[in-house]
């Protein structure tokens, strides 16, 4: 059934279809409507879950961590400083291998205070061991939430479903709301490897030594380093699991997609713009305009940012003259994190082949600065004509 709702409602409806048992959240703009909706569903009885109004984001994730450890499917959502306040728990959830799904409604971080959209919040969490998926429209928000539960539970790794604050969260657009039966067919009930249980007591997340140690059965158990290595290994393996996720999703819902990338007019392109989230859809308009001018340009949305689909991206960009990375965040003191990741992937897979594309980096929309499509088009055109700068260039800066 097609409906018109805002992006937060798309997320909430997706969550409801996944039947989480425990939801905990703390209000922060622009995330609030997601959790308000979920509290409505719980109170009206259309979702059978425990809704916990916590006293902080740190506690929101604490509730999810504990509830998940006890065997529940859980959900939370946050933005900006709320996510940063959770940071310790974000790391903890990954280390404990809990399949938590959290929507990050992307917003700029303070100081100074700013409630508008950029992606500094989630990008700053890229090294925490979570899977990060980015959405470009409402259908992707809803579908990604559903996929995220499947994947998180498959690989025992938590997932952030990231979507742009306001631009998606508060904008109304049509999308298809699937039937509950389809979601149930795609997503089996959560069956944890272990859930806290007095009949089978275990002590979870205890102090773990630098070296391996023998357990009570005489078997050699991991040290901290082995446990952390396995997280990294499983994150890398999650790339393959994501491909399976897309195949299964397509089988049930009939919507097929590449799990990692969303290319537009890239096949014959000499220049490819790359980005995360709704900006990549806006760039399609610029691409169409430049194509009309005869410039062979395409745009590629990166949907899966952690684990980084390095091989898929490098292969997709093979033979291109230039890659133009647009980002709403940066690794302060250097450049956009996505640009760095891309360079690294290109160097690894295309280095020495003589077909290494140049990489240019543009920073846009920081703190909700309006990104005019004409401005994007002009920037992209200029980048196809010459390398603009070694340093990341801020679009629309009025210094």
């Amino acid at each position, binding site marked *: 059934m097609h409906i018109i709702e805002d992006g937060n409602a798309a997320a909430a409806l997706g969550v409801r279809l996944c039947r989480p048992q425990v939801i905990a959240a703390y209000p922060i703009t622009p995330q609030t409507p997601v959790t308000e909706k979920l509290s409505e569903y719980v109170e009206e009885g259309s979702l059978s879950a425990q809704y916990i109004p916590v006293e902080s984001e740190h506690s929101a994730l604490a509730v999810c961590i504990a509830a998940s450890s006890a065997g529940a499917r859980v959900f939370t959502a946050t933005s900006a400083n709320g996510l940063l306040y959770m940071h310790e728990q974000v790391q903890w959830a990954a280390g404990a291998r809990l399949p938590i799904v959290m929507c990050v409604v992307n917003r700029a971080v303070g100081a100074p205070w700013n409630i508008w959209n950029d992606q500094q919040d989630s990008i700053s969490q890229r090294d925490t061991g979570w899977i990060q998926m980015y959405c470009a429209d409402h259908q992707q928000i809803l579908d990604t939430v559903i996929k995220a539960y499947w994947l998180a539970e498959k690989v025992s790794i938590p997932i952030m479903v990231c979507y742009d604050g306001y631009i998606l969260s508060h904008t109304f657009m049509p999308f298809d709301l699937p039937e509950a039966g389809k979601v149930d067919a795609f997503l089996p009930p959560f069956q944890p490897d272990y859930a806290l249980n*007095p009949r089978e007591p275990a002590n979870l997340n205890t102090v773990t030594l630098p070296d391996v140690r023998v357990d009570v059965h005489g078997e050699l158990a991991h040290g901290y380093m082995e446990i952390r290595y396995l997280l990294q290994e499983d994150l890398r393996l999650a790339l393959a699991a994501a491909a399976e996720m897309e195949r299964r999703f397509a089988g049930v819902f009939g919507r097929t997609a590449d799990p990692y990338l969303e290319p537009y007019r890239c096949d014959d392109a000499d220049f490819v713009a790359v980005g995360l989230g709704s900006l990549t859809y806006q760039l399609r308009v610029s691409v169409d305009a430049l194509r009309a001018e005869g410039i062979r340009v395409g745009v590629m949305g990166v949907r899966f940012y952690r684990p980084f689909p390095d091989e898929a991206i490098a292969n997709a960009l093979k033979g291109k003259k230039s890659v133009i990375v647009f980002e709403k965040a940066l690794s302060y003191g250097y450049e956009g994190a996505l640009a760095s990741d891309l360079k690294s992937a290109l160097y690894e897979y295309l280095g020495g082949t003589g077909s290494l594309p140049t990489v240019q980096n543009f920073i846009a929309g920081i703190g909700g600065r309006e990104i005019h499509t004409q401005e994007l088009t002009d920037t992209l055109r200029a980048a196809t004509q010459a390398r603009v700068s070694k340093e990341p260039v801020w679009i629309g800066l009025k210094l």
Partner: protein
Amino acid sequence: MQQAKTTILSLPTGEFVHPGTRACTGCGLSIAYRVGLKALGPDTMLIVPPSCLTVLQGLFPVASTKLPCLNVTFASTAAAATGILATLKAQGNTHTTVAAWAGDGGTSDIGLQALSGAAERGDNFIYFCYDNEGYMNTGVQRSGTTPIGAITANTPFKGKLQQKKDVPAIMAAHHLSYVAACSAAYPLDLYDKILKCRDLPGTKYFHIHIPCPPGWGYDPRYGIKIGRLAVETGYYDLYEVVNGEFRLTAASEKLVEKRKLVPVREYFRSQSRFKVLTEEQIADIQKQIDDKWEGYYKKSD
């Protein structure tokens, strides 16, 4: 209503803690924890933030406790209890007891926000603050509940200049069904209070005074004596607040009848941490104690 008091002979013999823990020799927490778990029983889930108990609980892959336990981040203890409770509710489990055990730093300082949140929501679990009056696990630094005059690693020469934070009073202000102040030196009082509160609704808060040989500076063999001295001097009181009603218990209750307190000087002189307390300061504290007890006496008249 009054249940029969547990005696040493009627205390269950089943143990939930294995011997051979990493706790310090003569650890007061070990005693309170051991007896506390007896009262909680086998159908219990534990939550523990970083603290001495984390070490006592054992290092991966060996656990000292025979109950399921979730180790959580320092500031999140009570919120984690909420999370486990929510899952139990979702699973229709109404029988399992959820109990958090945190130190005084994890309770009175970094964990206070989460504890206040859970208590305000009325989440049905028992929170134990074992108060050894400092960050003992990190090498004896001051906490919110370190008493005035105590030398710690970061109040090294003058001793702590501020008063001990009254956490049970803070928790009582959350309109809890049950707040108790206990001591490792009175394990049966702790045991009976746990049994008493188990079926009360909402959050139950226990504050347990825990003598700590390395943190307080005394020979381990005197741990119980010192814990008892804190009570007999009227310096630390055993009590409970049931649905807002305050009542002294056990040895503190008897002190009201006796109307004779051991001079607090004896308590201070039993531990090296108080060595910088002057006779004048001790006299001041003695006056505060006497005033407090005058109030108790008047109430009982």
